[in-house]
């Protein structure tokens, strides 16, 4: 989340709650609502690393709030992040480990594992379908996020089929 916050602060200085709102507004309903505590912890670490600077702003009848600014060093780190290609997803799949290892112990049958997993994936896909139908069609960011999750899940199902062909 560090770099996401830096990117938002590059636009304008903000306090923690504003950053939470900005994330929610940008990513829409598909984004798992960020935890405010986690945002403050991350901001604290960014400050310690010199990537952001906090300024206390006085408020009438309320405790001071901290407004965070991006530092020059923070901007450099952000630029590096933007300029680099992003790592692709790594295949490190918990189910695959189970599929390969569990039958060796004699406690599980691969066909049964695959069949159960397939139904589980379809049930997850049902959730994504529901989520998509509850999302405003004009909310492009949210729609694309959900479609991305669907395409990944489809790939997992296709892979499951390959496992079934070659491992059972």
């Amino acid at each position, binding site marked *: *989340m560090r770099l996401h916050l830096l990117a938002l602060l590059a636009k304008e200085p903000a306090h923690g709650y504003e950053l939470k709102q900005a994330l929610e507004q940008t*990513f829409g*309903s*598909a*984004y*798992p*609502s960020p935890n405010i505590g986690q945002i403050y912890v991350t901001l604290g670490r960014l400050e310690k690393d010199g990537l952001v600077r906090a300024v206390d702003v006085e408020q009438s009848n309320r405790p001071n709030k901290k407004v965070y600014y991006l530092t020059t060093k923070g901007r450099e780190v952000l630029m590096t992040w933007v300029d680099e290609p992003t790592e692709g997803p790594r295949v490190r799949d918990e189910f695959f480990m189970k599929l390969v290892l569990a039958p060796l112990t004699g406690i599980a049958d691969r*066909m049964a594992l695959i*069949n159960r997993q*397939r*139904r*589980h*994936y*379809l*049930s*997850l*896909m*049902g*959730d*994504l*379908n*529901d*989520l998509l139908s509850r999302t405003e069609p004009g909310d492009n960011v949210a729609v694309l*996020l*959900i*479609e991305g*999750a*669907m395409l990944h*899940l*489809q790939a997992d*199902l*296709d892979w499951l*089929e390959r496992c*079934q*062909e070659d491992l*059972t």
Partner: protein
Amino acid sequence: MSPVLKTVHLVKIYSDGAVPVPAVRGVDLQVEPGEFVAIMGPSGSGKSSLVHMLGGLDTRTSGEIWLDGRRVDTLSESAWALLRRKKIGFVFQFFNLVANMTVADNVELPALLAGASPKEARERRESLLGALNLTERADAAPGQLSGGEQQRVALARALANQPSVLLADEPTGNLDSRNTRDVLRLLSDVHKQGQTIIMVTHDARVASLADRLVSLFDGEIVDDGRIARRRTGTAGEVIDLR
């Protein structure tokens, strides 16, 4: 409740080549009225052969097929064809619309063949095209429509005779994401209205609409069970941005 469709040890062996190729090897399947069954499995697992036999588009080698309580695999080809017009709707990956007939006529034809009066057929066509937002395309030729629109017309046609069973073989196999969404919505709607659906698909989005998943492997059913409907939680459970 009696099953709308039932097979008993259904077998299909293709004997055209030098070596007989078994495609379906003893399938026992029972589908209740109103059920939505997705059939999945690797290519060559017998999915298409199975639904083609269920729809009478291919003959069985041995075993039994029962439709609405009547044994159909022993019917003559013409008797089966008559029954099929009344009881079965079929959607394929490629739309197979009649090119030189309008959209409206494509949809009315199956109802007329099934014995509906011209008035009934027209009303049914109007309501189906309306539900699919295709009313304005009624007088167009299929060739003037986009792939997604053609598949919606194919679906309307398959539903025109109010079939006991809607059979579908990769209905979204050829569609982009947006058109898949339209087809999904319609399948979901007709299923809610009680339409029995049996569908072969690789598309997990479509399969996830089903109540039940049948997995085929080497011509046999290796899994048959319900797809759990969870109470949808928050996005955080399915999407992780890190």
